[in-house]
């Protein structure tokens, strides 16, 4: 395998509703910051990869607008995934592994605020025959999962409230967070239910933001800075489409992806200093921690998605936040997780280290 590292990360503040900027307007300052931090000119970028979803934009091929922030003239080599931008990161990493170039820029845009009502939109991601006609609430599948976990003794409403309190408290140190604060567990437990057993703060607040990660290979990565967050292992796996077939209290796709990533990395999820998990709901944390085998790891030091969920940028932010802690020397090894689909259907695990493979 080729040594490939995250060398830079930037993001825009997650806003509940950005009515000022179009896609290019949100993205351009973030691209400038990410490239500027490592002195890379956009002409030096060999490949651009991005992730966003027309669901959230209400237009087909909506992401094309964002290319105005990349500068698609002269024509550039680029690709887009219609899903979380963490999968654009996976594509760029694979592209660099193929030796097609040395520097890739990955961006994610998530605008959860454009749909007037996400409950009009999100049923469209479900099976059109058995699930979509029922129009479950957007948080209903998560409620099924959380209730099954509590029933199985894997967590409790109080445990979930403690996760919320810790996450929002951590987010007070994150200037990009949409929501933060020092709440009490009882205060969180007093909030109304959204979809039982999930209450208001158990559900990640949807917002608008962009994130940019710069990846570089080998000597190019070493030339661009003193420290690199080397991507030592990456894998993603998908569970079956119909949630009724799955045991919702477990995430086999996360477990298998983590095992494969560990095989590539030479170290496992239990050996990282911090983990950034794509938890769209509080109950996802104990579920993922169990699937990954996390033990005394610090989880979501940024506050995680419970402090702001810019839809299709959320997973890429996890990779960036995990990498940032290696780049600034606060962590030696880090894990990032990203998810797509209802009730953690599709999961990506990325293991990074301040040290390249021996």
């Amino acid at each position, binding site marked *: 395998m080729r040594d490939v590292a995250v060398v830079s990360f930037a993001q825009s503040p997650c806003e509940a509703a950005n009515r*000022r900027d*179009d896609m290019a307007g949100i993205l351009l300052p973030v691209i400038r910051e990410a490239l500027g931090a490592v002195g890379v000119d956009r002409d030096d970028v060999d490949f651009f990869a991005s992730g966003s979803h027309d669901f959230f934009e209400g237009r087909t091929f909506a992401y094309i607008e964002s*290319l105005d922030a990349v500068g698609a003239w002269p024509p550039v080599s680029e690709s887009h995934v219609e899903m979380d931008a963490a999968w654009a990161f996976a594509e760029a990493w694979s592209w660099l592994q193929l030796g097609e170039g040395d520097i890739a820029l990955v961006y994610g845009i998530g605008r959860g605020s454009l*749909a007037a009502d996400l409950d*009009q939109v999100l049923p469209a991601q479900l099976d059109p025959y058995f699930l979509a006609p029922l129009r479950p609430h957007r948080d209903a599948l998560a409620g099924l999962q959380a209730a099954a976990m509590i029933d199985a003794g894997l967590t409790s409403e109080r445990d979930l409230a403690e996760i919320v309190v810790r996450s929002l408290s951590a987010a007070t140190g994150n200037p990009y967070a949409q929501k933060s604060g020092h709440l009490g567990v009882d205060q969180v437990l007093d909030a109304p239910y959204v979809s039982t057993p999930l209450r208001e703060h158990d559900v990640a607040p949807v917002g608008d933001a962009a994130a940019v990660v710069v990846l570089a290979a080998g000597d190019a990565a070493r030339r661009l800075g003193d420290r690199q967050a080397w991507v030592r292992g990456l894998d993603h796996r998908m569970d079956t489409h119909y949630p009724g077939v799955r045991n919702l209290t477990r995430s086999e796709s996360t477990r298998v992806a983590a095992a494969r990533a560990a095989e590539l990395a030479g170290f496992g999820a239990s050996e990282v200093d911090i983990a950034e998990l794509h938890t769209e709901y509080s109950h996802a944390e104990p579920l993922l921690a169990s699937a990954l085998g996390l033990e005394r790891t610090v989880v979501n030091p940024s506050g995680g998605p419970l402090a702001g969920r810019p839809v299709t940028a959320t997973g890429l932010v996890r990779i960036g936040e995990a990498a940032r802690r290696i780049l600034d020397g606060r962590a030696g090894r880090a894990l990032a997780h990203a998810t797509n689909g209802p009730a953690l259907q599709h999961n990506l695990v990325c293991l990074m280290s301040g040290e390249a493979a021996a």
Partner: protein
Amino acid sequence: MREPASEPSVLREPASEPSVLREPASEPSAPTLPEPLTTMASPFRMDYTYVAGTGRSVFLRGLAEGRMLARRCPACAQVYLPPPEFCSRCLSRLDEPFELDGRGVISTFCVVSFPFPGQVHEPPYVVAHIQVEGSGTRLMHLVREVDPADVRIGMEVEPVWAGEDERENSLTSIRHYRPAGDEYA
């Protein structure tokens, strides 16, 4: 010829109807498959907010005032009409907007003669790219008040604005373009 109304029971049970449909199943090797579902209704309605951004907002607000506003890139001097906020070549923020009178020449066009659902204009009609004088990009609009057979690339055209009380933040504030040469005056 059969009167459908005289055989209501047949209409209600299409599966039992024409023998032609059953023939393939009578082949010795063909399995008997259940009748597949062909249609089910699951209508979606989705409402969105569209965020025009600062660049487009400048142009669209100008149209509501009967003004065609262009902007120039300070780095490469490209003039955009309509202007975004940033130059898509240099990524520089474009300079302050300035007004153009909108006159220009047809750089390319086609005649739409095909009817389609949701069509707004009666075919045949002319859709054209107009090289507006003073702009480096081409503006798409309709060309009317001329027989489509007489439209030519290079023809001088001018905008026909909607009445002041009809103007909106939309390119429809320009009703269409029309020939501007003396022979059409």
